[in-house]
Protein backbone atom coordinates (compact mmCIF):
# COMPACT_ATOMS: atom_id res chain seq x y z
CA UNK A 1 0.00 0.00 0.00
CA UNK A 2 1.29 3.41 -0.85
CA UNK A 3 2.06 5.96 1.81
CA UNK A 4 -0.82 8.18 0.73
CA UNK A 5 -3.35 5.34 0.94
CA UNK A 6 -2.22 4.37 4.41
CA UNK A 7 -2.44 7.94 5.66
CA UNK A 8 -5.93 8.35 4.20
CA UNK A 9 -7.14 5.16 5.85
CA UNK A 10 -5.66 6.16 9.19
CA UNK A 11 -7.32 9.55 8.88
CA UNK A 12 -10.63 7.82 8.23
CA UNK A 13 -10.12 5.61 11.29
CA UNK A 14 -9.34 8.57 13.53
CA UNK A 15 -12.38 10.40 12.14
CA UNK A 16 -14.65 7.42 12.86
CA UNK A 17 -13.29 7.15 16.39
CA UNK A 18 -13.89 10.83 17.08
CA UNK A 19 -17.38 10.49 15.58
CA UNK A 20 -18.12 7.62 17.95
CA UNK A 21 -16.99 9.55 20.98
CA UNK A 22 -18.88 12.68 19.95
CA UNK A 23 -22.01 10.63 19.30
CA UNK A 24 -21.78 9.22 22.80
CA UNK A 25 -21.19 12.64 24.30
CA UNK A 26 -23.99 14.42 22.43
CA UNK A 27 -26.67 11.79 21.87
CA UNK A 28 -26.15 9.40 24.74
CA UNK A 29 -25.12 11.87 27.42
CA UNK A 30 -26.22 15.28 28.54
CA UNK A 31 -23.71 17.50 26.76
CA UNK A 32 -26.53 19.49 25.16
CA UNK A 33 -27.77 20.67 28.53
CA UNK A 34 -24.28 20.90 29.96
CA UNK A 35 -24.01 24.27 31.55
CA UNK A 36 -20.77 26.07 32.08
CA UNK A 37 -22.56 28.64 34.20
CA UNK A 38 -20.98 29.80 37.42
CA UNK A 39 -22.90 29.06 40.59
CA UNK A 40 -23.37 30.64 43.99
CA UNK A 41 -23.87 28.75 47.25
CA UNK A 42 -26.97 28.73 49.44
CA UNK A 43 -27.29 26.98 52.80
CA UNK A 44 -30.19 25.17 54.46
CA UNK A 45 -30.47 23.33 57.79
CA UNK A 46 -32.69 20.24 57.91
CA UNK A 47 -33.74 18.13 60.90
CA UNK A 48 -33.55 15.05 58.67
CA UNK A 49 -32.02 15.00 55.21
CA UNK A 50 -33.40 11.53 54.52
CA UNK A 51 -31.83 9.92 51.47
CA UNK A 52 -30.52 13.15 49.94
CA UNK A 53 -27.14 12.61 48.31
CA UNK A 54 -24.37 14.97 47.24
CA UNK A 55 -24.96 15.82 43.59
CA UNK A 56 -28.74 15.55 43.87
CA UNK A 57 -30.60 18.15 41.81
CA UNK A 58 -32.14 21.33 43.24
CA UNK A 59 -35.36 22.05 41.37
CA UNK A 60 -37.81 24.91 41.30
CA UNK A 61 -41.13 24.49 39.48
CA UNK A 62 -39.77 21.11 38.40
CA UNK A 63 -36.81 22.58 36.49
CA UNK A 64 -33.28 21.92 37.69
CA UNK A 65 -31.64 25.12 38.92
CA UNK A 66 -28.65 23.74 40.79
CA UNK A 67 -27.07 20.80 42.62
CA UNK A 68 -26.40 19.76 46.19
CA UNK A 69 -22.71 20.44 46.83
CA UNK A 70 -22.19 19.10 50.34
CA UNK A 71 -24.06 17.60 53.29
CA UNK A 72 -22.51 17.85 56.74
CA UNK A 73 -23.65 17.26 60.33
CA UNK A 74 -23.61 20.23 62.71
CA UNK A 75 -22.70 18.91 66.14
CA UNK A 76 -23.97 22.06 67.91
CA UNK A 77 -27.48 22.28 66.46
CA UNK A 78 -27.67 18.51 65.65
CA UNK A 79 -29.06 19.36 62.24
CA UNK A 80 -27.94 18.46 58.75
CA UNK A 81 -26.27 21.39 56.93
CA UNK A 82 -26.84 21.23 53.19
CA UNK A 83 -24.90 23.51 50.82
CA UNK A 84 -26.50 23.99 47.41
CA UNK A 85 -24.83 25.47 44.35
CA UNK A 86 -27.45 27.46 42.41
CA UNK A 87 -26.75 28.69 38.87
CA UNK A 88 -25.99 32.39 38.88
CA UNK A 89 -28.78 33.35 36.47
CA UNK A 90 -31.45 32.23 38.95
CA UNK A 91 -32.12 34.52 41.93
CA UNK A 92 -34.51 33.59 44.73
CA UNK A 93 -36.28 35.89 47.26
CA UNK A 94 -35.19 35.75 50.91
CA UNK A 95 -38.42 34.02 52.01
CA UNK A 96 -37.96 31.04 49.70
CA UNK A 97 -38.70 27.66 51.28
CA UNK A 98 -36.75 24.46 50.68
CA UNK A 99 -38.31 20.99 50.85
CA UNK A 100 -36.79 17.56 50.39
CA UNK A 101 -38.98 15.77 47.87
CA UNK A 102 -38.88 12.36 46.23
CA UNK A 103 -38.85 11.95 42.45
CA UNK A 104 -41.67 9.54 41.73
CA UNK A 105 -42.85 7.24 44.48
CA UNK A 106 -39.64 5.50 45.49
CA UNK A 107 -37.08 7.42 43.47
CA UNK A 108 -34.08 9.54 44.36
CA UNK A 109 -34.57 12.55 46.62
CA UNK A 110 -34.02 16.14 45.55
CA UNK A 111 -34.50 19.63 46.99
CA UNK A 112 -37.48 21.66 45.78
CA UNK A 113 -37.41 25.45 46.15
CA UNK A 114 -40.69 27.35 46.50
CA UNK A 115 -40.14 31.07 45.91
CA UNK A 116 -41.61 33.57 48.33
CA UNK A 117 -42.78 37.11 47.67
CA UNK A 118 -39.97 39.22 49.17
CA UNK A 119 -38.36 41.93 47.04
CA UNK A 120 -34.83 41.22 48.24
CA UNK A 121 -33.00 38.18 46.85
CA UNK A 122 -30.85 35.64 48.68
CA UNK A 123 -27.17 36.57 48.57
CA UNK A 124 -24.42 33.96 48.04
CA UNK A 125 -23.78 32.10 51.28
CA UNK A 126 -27.09 33.05 52.90
CA UNK A 127 -29.29 30.49 54.65
CA UNK A 128 -32.79 29.52 53.54
CA UNK A 129 -34.96 30.03 56.65
CA UNK A 130 -38.06 27.97 55.87
CA UNK A 131 -37.30 24.30 55.41
CA UNK A 132 -39.22 21.07 55.45
CA UNK A 133 -37.29 17.91 56.24
CA UNK A 134 -37.52 14.63 54.40
CA UNK A 135 -40.42 12.28 55.04
CA UNK A 136 -39.16 9.19 56.81
CA UNK A 137 -41.33 6.19 55.92
CA UNK A 138 -40.96 4.49 59.32
CA UNK A 139 -42.13 7.60 61.20
CA UNK A 140 -45.10 7.86 58.88
CA UNK A 141 -46.09 4.23 59.49
CA UNK A 142 -45.62 4.68 63.24
CA UNK A 143 -47.89 7.74 63.20
CA UNK A 144 -50.51 5.85 61.21
CA UNK A 145 -50.52 2.89 63.62
CA UNK A 146 -50.67 5.23 66.64
CA UNK A 147 -53.68 7.03 65.16
CA UNK A 148 -55.39 3.71 64.44
CA UNK A 149 -54.79 2.57 68.02
CA UNK A 150 -56.09 5.89 69.41
CA UNK A 151 -59.31 5.56 67.33
CA UNK A 152 -60.18 2.04 68.54
CA UNK A 153 -60.77 2.69 72.33
CA UNK A 154 -62.70 5.91 71.47
CA UNK A 155 -65.06 3.83 69.25
CA UNK A 156 -65.48 1.18 71.99
CA UNK A 157 -66.29 3.88 74.52
CA UNK A 158 -69.02 5.39 72.31
CA UNK A 159 -70.44 1.92 71.51
CA UNK A 160 -70.93 1.07 75.22
CA UNK A 161 -73.09 4.10 75.96
Amino acid sequence: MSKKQIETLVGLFVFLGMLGIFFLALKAANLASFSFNTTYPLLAHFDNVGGLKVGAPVKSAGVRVGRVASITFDNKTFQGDVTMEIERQYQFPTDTSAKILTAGLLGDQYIGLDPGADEKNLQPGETIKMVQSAVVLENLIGQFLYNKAAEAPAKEGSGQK
Partner: protein
Amino acid sequence: MSEFLARLGRHVLAVLQTLGHASAFFVDLVRNAPQSLRRPYLTTAQVHAIGNRSLVIIASSGATVGLVLALQGYITLSRYGAAESLGLLVALALVREMGPVVTALLYAGRAGTSLTAEIGLMKAGEQLAAMEMMAVDPRIRVLAPRFMAGVISMPLLGGIFSAVGVIAAYVVGVLMIGIDSGAFWSQMQDGVDVIKDVGNGVVKTIVFGIASTFIALYIGYESEATPEGVAQATTRTVVVSSLTVLSLDFVLTALMFSTP
Protein backbone atom coordinates in the same frame (compact mmCIF):
# COMPACT_ATOMS: atom_id res chain seq x y z
CA MET B 1 10.97 -29.88 51.56
CA SER B 2 13.88 -27.49 51.70
CA GLU B 3 14.37 -28.03 47.97
CA PHE B 4 10.76 -26.94 47.38
CA LEU B 5 11.24 -23.83 49.50
CA ALA B 6 14.47 -23.01 47.69
CA ARG B 7 12.71 -23.33 44.34
CA LEU B 8 9.82 -21.18 45.57
CA GLY B 9 12.26 -18.52 46.76
CA ARG B 10 14.10 -18.52 43.44
CA HIS B 11 10.81 -18.21 41.59
CA VAL B 12 9.67 -15.25 43.70
CA LEU B 13 13.00 -13.52 43.16
CA ALA B 14 12.72 -14.18 39.42
CA VAL B 15 9.23 -12.62 39.36
CA LEU B 16 10.52 -9.57 41.24
CA GLN B 17 13.41 -9.25 38.82
CA THR B 18 11.03 -9.42 35.83
CA LEU B 19 8.87 -6.74 37.44
CA GLY B 20 11.88 -4.46 37.89
CA HIS B 21 13.12 -5.06 34.36
CA ALA B 22 9.63 -4.40 32.98
CA SER B 23 9.37 -1.14 34.94
CA ALA B 24 12.69 0.05 33.53
CA PHE B 25 11.46 -0.88 30.05
CA PHE B 26 8.27 1.08 30.62
CA VAL B 27 10.12 4.18 31.76
CA ASP B 28 12.36 3.90 28.69
CA LEU B 29 9.32 3.53 26.45
CA VAL B 30 7.61 6.60 27.89
CA ARG B 31 10.80 8.61 27.65
CA ASN B 32 11.29 7.72 23.97
CA ALA B 33 7.63 8.07 23.03
CA PRO B 34 7.72 11.81 22.17
CA GLN B 35 10.57 11.06 19.73
CA SER B 36 8.10 9.22 17.52
CA LEU B 37 6.56 12.60 16.67
CA ARG B 38 9.71 13.42 14.68
CA ARG B 39 8.81 10.76 12.13
CA PRO B 40 5.02 10.88 12.12
CA TYR B 41 4.73 8.51 9.19
CA LEU B 42 6.12 5.66 11.30
CA THR B 43 3.39 6.22 13.89
CA THR B 44 0.73 6.61 11.20
CA ALA B 45 1.73 3.30 9.60
CA GLN B 46 1.48 1.64 12.99
CA VAL B 47 -1.94 3.18 13.70
CA HIS B 48 -3.01 1.66 10.40
CA ALA B 49 -1.66 -1.75 11.39
CA ILE B 50 -3.06 -1.65 14.93
CA GLY B 51 -6.18 0.48 14.68
CA ASN B 52 -7.56 0.21 11.17
CA ARG B 53 -7.05 -3.53 11.02
CA SER B 54 -8.96 -3.96 14.33
CA LEU B 55 -11.96 -1.93 13.17
CA VAL B 56 -13.92 -4.86 11.79
CA ILE B 57 -13.72 -7.02 14.91
CA ILE B 58 -14.31 -4.12 17.27
CA ALA B 59 -17.32 -2.78 15.36
CA SER B 60 -18.96 -6.18 14.92
CA SER B 61 -18.33 -7.10 18.56
CA GLY B 62 -19.77 -3.77 19.61
CA ALA B 63 -22.91 -4.39 17.59
CA THR B 64 -23.34 -7.91 18.98
CA VAL B 65 -22.74 -6.84 22.59
CA GLY B 66 -25.24 -3.99 22.15
CA LEU B 67 -27.84 -6.37 20.73
CA VAL B 68 -27.38 -8.88 23.54
CA LEU B 69 -27.44 -6.21 26.25
CA ALA B 70 -30.67 -4.82 24.80
CA LEU B 71 -32.37 -8.24 24.67
CA GLN B 72 -31.30 -9.37 28.13
CA GLY B 73 -31.92 -5.96 29.61
CA TYR B 74 -35.43 -5.81 28.19
CA ILE B 75 -36.37 -9.22 29.64
CA THR B 76 -35.29 -8.23 33.14
CA LEU B 77 -36.51 -4.63 33.06
CA SER B 78 -39.99 -5.53 31.80
CA ARG B 79 -40.45 -7.65 34.94
CA TYR B 80 -40.44 -4.44 36.99
CA GLY B 81 -42.33 -2.38 34.44
CA ALA B 82 -39.19 -0.35 33.72
CA ALA B 83 -38.79 -1.30 30.06
CA GLU B 84 -38.55 2.38 29.10
CA SER B 85 -35.17 2.61 30.85
CA LEU B 86 -33.56 0.18 28.39
CA GLY B 87 -31.62 2.95 26.68
CA LEU B 88 -30.20 4.14 29.98
CA LEU B 89 -29.23 0.62 31.02
CA VAL B 90 -27.43 -0.23 27.79
CA ALA B 91 -25.68 3.13 27.50
CA LEU B 92 -24.36 3.08 31.07
CA ALA B 93 -23.28 -0.55 30.87
CA LEU B 94 -21.43 0.04 27.59
CA VAL B 95 -19.87 3.42 28.28
CA ARG B 96 -18.72 2.70 31.82
CA GLU B 97 -17.61 -0.94 31.69
CA MET B 98 -18.29 -3.14 28.70
CA GLY B 99 -16.89 -0.72 26.13
CA PRO B 100 -13.44 -0.19 27.66
CA VAL B 101 -12.99 -3.73 28.99
CA VAL B 102 -14.21 -5.76 26.00
CA THR B 103 -12.38 -3.45 23.59
CA ALA B 104 -9.19 -3.89 25.63
CA LEU B 105 -9.54 -7.68 25.68
CA LEU B 106 -10.16 -7.84 21.91
CA TYR B 107 -7.35 -5.36 21.32
CA ALA B 108 -4.96 -7.49 23.40
CA GLY B 109 -5.98 -10.54 21.42
CA ARG B 110 -5.72 -8.96 18.00
CA ALA B 111 -3.24 -6.10 18.12
CA GLY B 112 -1.28 -7.25 21.16
CA THR B 113 -0.42 -10.63 19.71
CA SER B 114 0.57 -9.13 16.36
CA LEU B 115 2.86 -6.64 18.12
CA THR B 116 4.45 -9.37 20.23
CA ALA B 117 4.96 -11.67 17.26
CA GLU B 118 6.40 -8.86 15.15
CA ILE B 119 8.88 -7.67 17.79
CA GLY B 120 9.76 -11.25 18.70
CA LEU B 121 10.47 -12.18 15.08
CA MET B 122 12.46 -8.98 14.60
CA LYS B 123 14.57 -10.00 17.56
CA ALA B 124 14.85 -13.60 16.33
CA GLY B 125 15.91 -12.38 12.91
CA GLU B 126 18.48 -10.12 14.57
CA GLN B 127 16.94 -7.04 12.96
CA LEU B 128 17.08 -5.11 16.22
CA ALA B 129 20.73 -5.99 16.75
CA ALA B 130 21.47 -4.93 13.13
CA MET B 131 19.80 -1.56 13.79
CA GLU B 132 21.96 -1.04 16.85
CA MET B 133 25.02 -1.80 14.76
CA MET B 134 23.98 1.03 12.42
CA ALA B 135 23.69 3.41 15.42
CA VAL B 136 19.91 3.54 14.98
CA ASP B 137 18.17 3.21 18.32
CA PRO B 138 15.61 0.39 17.82
CA ARG B 139 13.61 1.71 20.76
CA ILE B 140 12.99 5.00 18.94
CA ARG B 141 12.58 3.51 15.50
CA VAL B 142 10.56 0.39 16.30
CA LEU B 143 9.10 0.44 19.81
CA ALA B 144 8.07 4.06 20.38
CA PRO B 145 5.87 4.41 17.24
CA ARG B 146 4.05 1.19 18.14
CA PHE B 147 3.51 2.39 21.71
CA MET B 148 2.15 5.77 20.58
CA ALA B 149 -0.03 4.04 17.98
CA GLY B 150 -1.53 1.78 20.64
CA VAL B 151 -2.21 4.65 23.03
CA ILE B 152 -3.87 6.65 20.22
CA SER B 153 -5.93 3.76 18.82
CA MET B 154 -7.44 2.37 22.02
CA PRO B 155 -9.69 5.33 22.95
CA LEU B 156 -10.91 5.58 19.35
CA LEU B 157 -11.69 1.86 19.22
CA GLY B 158 -13.44 2.05 22.58
CA GLY B 159 -15.55 4.97 21.41
CA ILE B 160 -16.53 3.11 18.23
CA PHE B 161 -17.42 0.00 20.27
CA SER B 162 -19.72 1.88 22.63
CA ALA B 163 -21.32 3.98 19.90
CA VAL B 164 -22.05 0.98 17.67
CA GLY B 165 -23.40 -0.87 20.73
CA VAL B 166 -25.83 1.93 21.56
CA ILE B 167 -27.06 2.07 17.96
CA ALA B 168 -27.49 -1.73 17.88
CA ALA B 169 -29.47 -1.53 21.12
CA TYR B 170 -31.66 1.14 19.48
CA VAL B 171 -32.29 -1.16 16.53
CA VAL B 172 -33.34 -4.02 18.80
CA GLY B 173 -35.20 -2.04 21.45
CA VAL B 174 -37.09 0.50 19.35
CA LEU B 175 -37.32 -0.99 15.88
CA MET B 176 -37.74 -4.66 16.80
CA ILE B 177 -39.25 -4.80 20.30
CA GLY B 178 -41.22 -1.56 20.05
CA ILE B 179 -40.08 0.56 23.00
CA ASP B 180 -40.88 4.23 22.59
CA SER B 181 -38.03 5.96 20.75
CA GLY B 182 -38.42 9.22 22.67
CA ALA B 183 -38.27 7.45 26.03
CA PHE B 184 -35.23 5.45 24.87
CA TRP B 185 -33.11 8.51 24.05
CA SER B 186 -34.41 10.92 26.69
CA GLN B 187 -33.88 8.51 29.61
CA MET B 188 -30.39 7.86 28.27
CA GLN B 189 -29.55 11.54 27.91
CA ASP B 190 -30.89 12.22 31.40
CA GLY B 191 -28.85 9.56 33.07
CA VAL B 192 -25.51 9.48 31.26
CA ASP B 193 -23.15 12.26 32.34
CA VAL B 194 -20.55 13.44 29.81
CA ILE B 195 -17.65 13.82 32.22
CA LYS B 196 -18.47 11.24 34.84
CA ASP B 197 -19.51 8.43 32.50
CA VAL B 198 -18.25 9.04 28.96
CA GLY B 199 -15.13 10.84 30.20
CA ASN B 200 -14.24 8.15 32.71
CA GLY B 201 -14.79 5.51 30.04
CA VAL B 202 -12.32 7.31 27.74
CA VAL B 203 -9.80 7.54 30.60
CA LYS B 204 -10.18 3.80 31.11
CA THR B 205 -9.49 3.07 27.46
CA ILE B 206 -6.34 5.21 27.56
CA VAL B 207 -5.07 3.38 30.66
CA PHE B 208 -5.87 -0.02 29.14
CA GLY B 209 -4.20 1.01 25.89
CA ILE B 210 -0.99 2.00 27.69
CA ALA B 211 -0.99 -1.22 29.72
CA SER B 212 -1.78 -3.66 26.87
CA THR B 213 0.62 -2.08 24.38
CA PHE B 214 3.42 -1.93 26.93
CA ILE B 215 2.90 -5.59 27.91
CA ALA B 216 2.79 -6.70 24.28
CA LEU B 217 5.98 -4.81 23.42
CA TYR B 218 7.83 -5.98 26.53
CA ILE B 219 6.97 -9.65 26.12
CA GLY B 220 7.90 -9.48 22.44
CA TYR B 221 11.18 -7.74 23.23
CA GLU B 222 12.11 -10.24 25.93
CA SER B 223 10.98 -13.37 24.08
CA GLU B 224 13.39 -16.13 23.23
CA ALA B 225 14.82 -15.73 19.75
CA THR B 226 13.31 -19.03 18.53
CA PRO B 227 10.00 -19.90 16.82
CA GLU B 228 8.80 -21.70 19.96
CA GLY B 229 9.81 -18.72 22.04
CA VAL B 230 7.77 -16.37 19.86
CA ALA B 231 4.76 -18.69 19.98
CA GLN B 232 4.93 -18.86 23.78
CA ALA B 233 5.32 -15.10 23.94
CA THR B 234 2.12 -14.43 21.98
CA THR B 235 -0.01 -16.60 24.28
CA ARG B 236 1.63 -15.04 27.31
CA THR B 237 0.78 -11.56 25.98
CA VAL B 238 -2.91 -12.38 25.77
CA VAL B 239 -3.02 -13.93 29.24
CA VAL B 240 -1.01 -11.21 31.00
CA SER B 241 -2.79 -8.38 29.15
CA SER B 242 -6.23 -9.76 29.94
CA LEU B 243 -5.45 -10.24 33.63
CA THR B 244 -3.88 -6.79 33.88
CA VAL B 245 -6.80 -5.12 32.11
CA LEU B 246 -9.33 -6.79 34.41
CA SER B 247 -7.41 -5.88 37.59
CA LEU B 248 -6.91 -2.30 36.41
CA ASP B 249 -10.61 -2.16 35.61
CA PHE B 250 -11.45 -3.10 39.19
CA VAL B 251 -9.10 -0.45 40.58
CA LEU B 252 -10.31 2.25 38.18
CA THR B 253 -13.98 1.45 38.77
CA ALA B 254 -13.45 1.64 42.53
CA LEU B 255 -11.68 4.99 42.09
CA MET B 256 -14.16 6.49 39.66
CA PHE B 257 -17.56 5.11 40.46
CA SER B 258 -17.73 4.17 44.12
CA THR B 259 -20.00 6.30 46.24
CA PRO B 260 -18.25 7.84 49.26
